[in-house]
């Protein structure tokens, strides 16, 4: 019997509820319409398009079924792009996050000038990657670059930072870490500031060493922020495009050793105008990112401590 009033309320909303609903729908309308038109429908369109072959001739798209995906599996460039993207992500997120955490810990204490350091470390983040990469490309220049000049001062043979396929990925990873270090650090400092001071005081009284305090207080208590930093850095790094695109073109000997999935997507979709194949390439990235996100959420329970 007691369910009936509730059911009735659900069936016939009151004047007051109607009013609230109308306001709510009105307020979310621009965002939801935009989101559906700009993002949700495009997801299905991209999936749909990945079953078509689109040539440069007019708008005629040819249905090819799974052809694009079959080509994809046999395309060595797709495999190397997947490998490159994962290597880049692993290096940039791995090394970058550890460095950012160490810096955050160093700048969280009572240190003179910590505000200045924090400001300086964040600068690369505000510069557009297009310009940043041009600067690094100039530093890396084989014949005239500053790095090879400095090496020559110490009598070391010049390194072909960009066009040597064995080195190019390292050069790109360096730029990747350099550009994002400040961002992760700022987020981690904010996380560290949430940790109550008395935890450390209690640990000091108990005679815990600095290392012990770091691993038993700092890391577990900063873990929610650390998790957030890891998730966002992984997703950003997986989408790397600007640095690789600006650093080297398709004719560089290092292209196969550095091309990322997004760069490959861009080339296929817009340089070679095969949007069908480009869509299939980007599906690979979508699947990998969704898998990583699911994995991270699962592992989160094992090491992230929410208070």
């Amino acid at each position, binding site marked *: 019997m007691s369910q009936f009033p509730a059911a009735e309320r659900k069936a016939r909303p009151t004047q007051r509820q109607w009013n609230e609903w109308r306001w709510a729908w009105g307020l979310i309308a621009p965002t939801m319409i935009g989101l559906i038109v700009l993002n949700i429908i495009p997801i299905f369109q991209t999936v749909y398009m990945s079953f078509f072959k689109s040539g440069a001739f007019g708008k005629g798209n040819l249905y090819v079924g799974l052809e694009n995906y079959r080509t994809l599996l046999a395309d060595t460039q797709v495999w190397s792009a997947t490998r490159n993207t994962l290597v880049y992500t692993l290096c940039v997120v791995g090394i970058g996050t550890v460095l950012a955490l160490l810096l955050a810990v160093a700048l969280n204490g009572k240190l003179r000038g910590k505000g200045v350091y924090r400001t300086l470390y964040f600068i690369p983040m505000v510069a557009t990657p*297009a310009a940043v990469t041009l600067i690094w490309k100039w530093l890396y220049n084989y014949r005239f670059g500053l790095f090879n000049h400095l090496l020559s001062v110490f009598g070391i043979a010049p390194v072909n930072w960009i066009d040597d396929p064995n080195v190019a990925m390292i050069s790109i990873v360096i730029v990747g870490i350099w550009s994002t270090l400040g961002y992760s650090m700022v987020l981690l400092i*904010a996380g560290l500031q949430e940790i109550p001071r008395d935890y450390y005081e209690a640990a000091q009284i108990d005679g815990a060493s600095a290392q012990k305090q770091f691993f038993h207080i700092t890391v577990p208590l900063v873990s929610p922020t650390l998790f*957030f930093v890891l998730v966002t850095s992984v997703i950003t790094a997986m989408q790397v495009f600007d640095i690789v695109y600006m650093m080297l073109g398709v004719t560089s000997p290092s292209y196969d050793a550095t091309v990322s999935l997004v760069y490959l997507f861009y080339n296929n979709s817009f340089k070679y105008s095969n949007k069908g194949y480009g869509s299939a390439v980007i599906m690979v990235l979508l699947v990998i990112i969704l898998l990583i996100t699911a994995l991270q959420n699962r592992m989160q329970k094992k090491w992230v401590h929410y208070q």
Partner: protein
Amino acid sequence: MEKLSFSFRKHRAPILLHAVLILISVIMVFPFVWMVLTSLKTVTESTRMAPFSFLPESFQWVNYATVWKQNDFFQLYLNTFGMVALRVLCAVVFSAMAAYAFARLTFPGKRFLFGLVLFQMMVPTQVFVIPQYLMVDAMGMRNTLFALVFPGLVSAFGTFLLRQFFMGLPKELEESARLDGCNIGQTFVWVMLPLTHSGLAALAIFTVLFAFKDLMWPLVVNTDIGAATLSSALSKIGSSYSVDYPNLMAASVLAVVPMLLLYSVFQRQFIEGIATSGGKL
């Protein structure tokens, strides 16, 4: 002697730490210094290996004039600032509206629609690029300011971020406003919105930062150099000035200066904005 060594031990750690931190500061800032130094040299000077030139022998300000004229930087600034300003306006206004409804109102379809917001945030943006490009193309709007703003008309991220801010506000304020006779819209605009100013600022900063950096979308949709942004124009300049590094660096200076200026003025807001957004997500 005992006392001296003790005080040395006490100060050694900070001195070593400062040495490391200063070294890192140099690494973070030096590339920008080298960019400016190179931009003021002649091509011969910049490519001379012996004697290697560190500081410019005479300042070649003319490089800036050359680059400005050859690439119509005035137009590039106009396009970039226009895009950034409109994206910020759209993101902040529409996200605040939607975020308030999701945080404070009950309505049918709320869970499902918010699920769409969360879903969008998980999908890499490149998945949207081809369909968005085809839409702009079908509207005949390529090479326009509208095209640059198009993907940023709404922001799922902004909606999510601001919802967190609204959820953190006390319910009593809203109830007393409603008792005083405000309708939902008035409560939102006059009572709740002013209380989330730090959230709005964080979203604005985020949007500025990432709109400025965006490279692929302007590259794809505005292929005319006159409709390009600073970022996308740099990629074209980069290939046309292949060996003219002083001019290339002058162009890079012109491209990074607006954000560096903005950062030097609103430094605290930038860092706090990023920090609070991280804490809220």
